[in-house]
């Protein structure tokens, strides 16, 4: 009987999972950063809260959220597994290892950057997602929408949290500086004409997304956005 056999347990299959889930997360981040950037209207969070409500009640988004969550778990599980397997592939380490001569430090540190992101995600999800989805948002805004913005403003009064967020976004930037183009390579999309475009796009994507995200806690903490 024909089946997919060992497609996903092979080295390339594992990569495929990383790549697809990674790209999915990248797509998600676009939506996420778009909605969140609504706070920059600086209208006391009204536009943002509307966006958040749409996100919370649109069934496509809700279904996508499940996929996203499964994907994230798969990405994390597979990513960590790769880290350990790959470490085992070289039981005796080099006494002298000059990695910077041939590759970027962040390309070699995807596991570390990912783990930092994981820690951040735990904090982040329990701060916002758990609140909005399960425990409930305590207040409503002027238009009677759930005031997620207020939750945000509240959280970002804490300097520690702001620093954590900014550091996490630095990690995200580096994770994506490698990850974006890497995912395309994994999927086999390497082309003399298109790859430079992908790399350039990935570079700007990583920077812009991370900077936008990082600006949010900073702007709120410093009171630029109220």
């Amino acid at each position, binding site marked *: 009987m024909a089946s997919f056999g060992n*497609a996903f347990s092979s*080295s390339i299959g594992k990569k495929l999972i990383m790549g697809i889930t990674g790209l999915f997360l990248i797509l998600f981040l676009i939506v996420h950063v778009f909605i969140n950037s609504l706070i920059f209207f600086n209208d006391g969070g009204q536009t943002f809260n509307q966006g958040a409500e749409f996100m919370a009640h649109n069934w496509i988004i809700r279904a996508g959220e499940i996929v996203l969550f499964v994907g994230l778990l798969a990405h994390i599980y597979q990513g960590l597994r*790769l880290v350990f*397997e790959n470490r085992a*592939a070289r039981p005796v*380490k*080099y006494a002298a290892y000059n990695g910077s001569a*041939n590759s970027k430090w962040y390309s070699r540190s995807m596991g570390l950057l990912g783990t930092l992101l994981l820690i951040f995600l735990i904090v982040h999800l329990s701060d916002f997602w758990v609140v909005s989805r399960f425990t409930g948002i305590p207040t409503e805004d002027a238009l009677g929408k759930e005031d997620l913005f207020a939750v945000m403003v509240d959280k970002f009064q804490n300097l520690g949290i702001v620093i954590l967020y900014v550091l996490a976004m630095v990690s995200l930037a580096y994770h994506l500086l490698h990850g974006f183009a*890497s995912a395309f390579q994994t999927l086999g999309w*390497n082309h003399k004409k298109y790859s430079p475009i992908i790399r350039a796009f990935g570079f700007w994507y990583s920077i812009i997304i991370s900077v936008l995200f990082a600006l949010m806690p900073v702007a709120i903490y410093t009171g630029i956005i109220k």
Partner: protein
Amino acid sequence: MSTENMNLTLKVWRQTDNKAQGNLVDYKVSDVSPDMSFLEMFDVLNEDLITKGDDPIVFDHDCREGICGACSMYINGRPHGPKELVTTCQLHMRSFKDGDTIVVEPWRAKAFPVIKDLAVDRTAFDRIIAAGGFISVNTGNAQDANAIPIPKSQSDAAFEAAACIACGACVATCKNASAMLFTSAKISQLALLPQGQPERYRRAQSMVAQMDAEGFGNCTNTGACEAECPKGISLENIARMNRDFYHAKFVSEEEV
């Protein structure tokens, strides 16, 4: 860049056999000519060790012109040393300077066990080729060589992939000890040629399976292999291998 003779300190990995514990041992070499190759510097050191009654350092080498792929030293944290696009045997001492300390280690990977000192066992590569790195054509079965014209660009691309010398520097430098560059070079060479089409997807599957079975790590696209490969084998080959693998697993109905 030195033009004068040099005095150097070497820290060389010594290990009597596969089971033994190894360690780095210091050696002084003096009056090293900048015209010497790195291996000739080792010859001089070995000559010295032999006359002193010590065991000379074992390392793999044969052609000494950068084509057989035997030489394999990890020099100051880089496979084949500091210069790009050269093998250890083509690295010359003028790339170092007087007073340098040079650390020399064997390739390190689970799939490349150390045999002795700097020599490792790379037969895993042969087994990967045996798993499918060929076109099944018995002697005498060939049609005229010009029967199938092949676009020059394609033939050149196949040639570039075929230039791999199986030195293993890609595995040695990869932080994951992955053999993807080597494996993909062969898969690509044959995938690019019309003669390679009939077995194209079978080949990708069986070679990847063998590569995995040998205990190499997984590729994370750091690009270190491409940067260190003495023959400039491109990462495009890995992408091509991935494509062929997906095709084999998700498009083709044949199972291997």
